[in-house]
């Protein structure tokens, strides 16, 4: 991490290079930058690697010899245990998280995509009002207690699946990104010509605008999905039923207490064979295996979606 802060002092090295016809970084400075950035990248990847390696390490070895860069004794037993009845609660948490992520993401893309469109149209008379209406939610946060009371005493979505995605299924921030995206990527002329051809507003939006706005939708969808997948606070605040815990909450509890892990294993179905397992519960490597399956989908999907969001973000980030 310190490598990142060290990047600035490296810049003056360029002074030593001779003038160039091409205004390029000198070979030396270029090398220094490469090295620094590679170190930075290693700082990002190695920790993940260590967690993955630990999940594939024999539990006793892991406890005795510690976390290594390569499994001292390779073992897939943590994953076997996860797939057996021992991982029962984890599978429930997985199901809850997948369901919440899918529902929340679909809701978010639809509601944000719809809300941002009229705001991007200059021929919409109440644009200012509805822009402010959504902005206000960003500027004034009602606070945790009001949110808690809203969910528990007014909406009563605590201890339901809704608590895991509903509060995340819209965001004024994404409205801004999406509105800017519509404005900068969909030429007015396209909408005008659709209108002249007799298309109504809905048809224009769904058949003309939406296909052009897919990178914008993708950005919103990916961030919404990651946000819900990674959400911990809602489950912490609003859920106290084991069958509704999500992944992050389960994961956090498991690290806090090995007791939770044992209860989890014991409570999940097949009584006799599970209890037999408790003695040789691969606790440490099992924990790491659960971290791996929790971050797995994000890491696997990341290379595919990153090109979308960088584009969507850089366009949306420039305020319009």
């Amino acid at each position, binding site marked *: 991490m310190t490598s990142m802060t060290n990047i600035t002092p490296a810049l003056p090295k360029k002074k030593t290079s001779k003038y160039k016809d091409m205004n390029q970084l000198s070979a030396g400075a270029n090398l220094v930058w490469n090295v620094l*950035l590679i170190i*930075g990248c290693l700082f990002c990847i190695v920790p993940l690697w260590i967690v993955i390696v630990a999940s594939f390490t024999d539990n006793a070895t892991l406890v005795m010899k510690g976390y290594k860069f390569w499994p001292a004794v390779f073992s897939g037993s943590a994953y076997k245990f996860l797939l057996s009845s021992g991982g029962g609660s984890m599978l429930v948490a997985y199901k809850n998280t997948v369901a919440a992520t899918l529902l929340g993401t679909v809701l978010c893309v639809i509601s944000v995509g719809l809300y941002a469109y009229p705001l991007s149209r200059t021929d919409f008379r109440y644009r200012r009002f509805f822009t402010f209406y959504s902005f206000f939610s960003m500027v004034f946060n009602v606070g945790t207690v009001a949110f808690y009371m809203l969910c528990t005493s007014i909406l009563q979505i605590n201890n339901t699946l809704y608590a895991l995605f509903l509060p995340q299924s819209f965001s004024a921030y994404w409205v801004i990104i999406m509105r800017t995206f519509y404005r900068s990527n969909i030429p007015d002329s396209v909408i005008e010509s659709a209108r002249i051809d007799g298309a109504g507003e809905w048809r224009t939006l769904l058949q003309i605008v939406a296909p052009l706005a897919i990178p914008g939708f993708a950005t919103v969808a990916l961030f919404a999905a990651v946000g819900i997948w990674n959400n911990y606070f809602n489950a912490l605040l609003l859920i106290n039923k084991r069958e509704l815990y999500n992944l992050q909450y389960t994961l956090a509890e498991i690290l806090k207490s090995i007791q939770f892990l044992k209860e989890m294993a014991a409570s999940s179905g097949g009584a006799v064979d599970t209890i037999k397992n408790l003695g040789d519960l691969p606790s440490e490597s099992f924990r790491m295996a659960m971290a791996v399956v929790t971050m797995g989908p994000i890491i696997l999907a990341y290379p595919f979606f990153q090109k979308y969001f960088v584009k969507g973000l850089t366009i949306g980030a420039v305020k319009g």
Partner: protein
Amino acid sequence: MKATALSKETRKVVKKRSWGTGEVKRHLAYLIMLLPGIIFLFVFSYLPLPTIIMAFKKYKLAIPPAGHWLQNKFLYSLFFKSPWVGLENFKFILNAPLFPVFMRNTIGYNLVFMAIGLVAAVALAVGINELRQRKAAKVYHTILFLPYFLSWIIVTYILFAFISPAGVIPQAFTALGMTPPQLYNNAKAWPIIYVIFNLWKYAGNGSIIYLSTITGFSQELYEAASIDGAGKWKQFRYVTFPQLVPTIILLQILAVGRILNADFDMFYNLRNGASAAYQNSLTIDVYVYEMIKSNPSKLYYPAAAAFFQSLIGFVLVLTTNSIVRKVEPEMAMF
């Protein structure tokens, strides 16, 4: 927002303009499109607003009598049965022994994160932009952005793999024949840990706006500077940096507006229950949450703390926004 006489007049004219053919229909369609968002915002941002008065009341639970128009237990109790207590709840929060601790932590961490995050983000953006190998630059940026997508719970696991007794760092100390540090029990280590992991998670993300801003700069300036004999450092100092200043100011000002909002997931989880780290991990969000959970019958105390946080945040955002509007009208949020 810019209420010049002219624009007011123009707006009046626009308002008075009669509805053209198809315009009513179009606006109906627009309103239907807005509807899901309107409902969401109403429920989650506007409906809770009146309940903020809890901060000024002693909440007492009461059952609404049959036939009363408000049958919701919470709302009935709050509006009709709870006595006003003025600023008493705020006094309680201000006099809480932990108040100076969580205020120091919340503001202190945010200031340090801002400063270090700024240096890292600008440095990353400049470095990635200058690199000769464009493909490599892209790969680096992709990798550096990855931690942003991992939850703080995963980061807690990573930290555990590094600093728990069997972790990488104590193992390395043992291998070198030194006493392994017990970082979970070392209060002083935690500010450093928070700074490191905050940087780790957000540096890649923070650099994106600077990177896209730098990419937009005219190359002619750099060529001219280069011909005049400016090296890369001088180009950064006299060409890149001055052009970046508006963006830097804007982002820092926005960050000031969020100075009372701490990353709950990080401060609540990362220490993994280590009590030695508590004093250095307690931020206002954690405090509010702990009060909700520890004393659910006295929610008016955390309500006062949360209102204090919201109000300061609101005032700061408005103030900073009006400063931005004066400095760089283009960049103001509203």
